[in-house]
């Protein structure tokens, strides 16, 4: 079977080294964190979001409330959703907004769940996010995102 990366043809890519973070389980844990830009309807500029967790376990991108308020006038105007994780019975209220996102030179529109809480990480999830890229999580050291 052909290597998907080779069959990708001419492509661009960007690398993000994993960052060392504290862990209860091991001394350190490395996490794939990326820098993205999101267009703000408030400032009419591309705002830079740093240390966003690239999370293949997340269906959608998720931003905390302040970040949402920086990007859109009223976060509650998005579609109401309840985000669930692995903790039974716990739900987080969020609102889906279609936001313009840039990863390096690649620009796209993705549905983003803006949480009604600030106690929520910035997450770059799969749908219209990571799935747009050939994502290579290389040996727990770096994430390379490639695209045509």
């Amino acid at each position: 079977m052909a290597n998907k990366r080779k069959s990708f043809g001419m492509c661009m890519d960007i690398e993000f080294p994993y960052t060392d973070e504290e862990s209860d389980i091991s001394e350190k844990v490395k996490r794939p964190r990326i820098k993205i830009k999101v267009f703000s309807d408030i400032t009419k500029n591309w705002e830079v979001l740093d240390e966003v967790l690239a999370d293949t376990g997340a269906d959608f991108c998720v931003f905390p409330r302040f970040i949402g308020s920086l990007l859109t006038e009223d976060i509650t105007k998005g579609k109401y959703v309840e985000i669930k994780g692995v903790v039974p019975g716990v739900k987080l209220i969020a609102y889906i907004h279609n936001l313009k996102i840039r990863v390096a030179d690649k620009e796209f529109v993705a549905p983003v769940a803006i949480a009604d809480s600030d106690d929520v990480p910035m997450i770059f999830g799969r749908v219209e996010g990571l799935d747009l890229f050939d994502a290579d999580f290389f040996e727990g050291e770096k994430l390379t995102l490639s695209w045509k």
Partner: protein
Amino acid sequence: MVIKVEQRFEYVIKVEGKEVWRGLNPTKVFFEIKRQNPRKEISIAWRTKEKVLVCVWI
């Protein structure tokens, strides 16, 4: 009686990648830092002291 609430997360504002502010409410300071640095890249990050992060789905 004083009730101390543990701060589990914080926002971090960076100018050209260098941290210049940390805290819970970046609303005013973010726009002030942007105003003071009109030609520089201002970025914002969210950090937690929680030591395990897990997946989410909707």
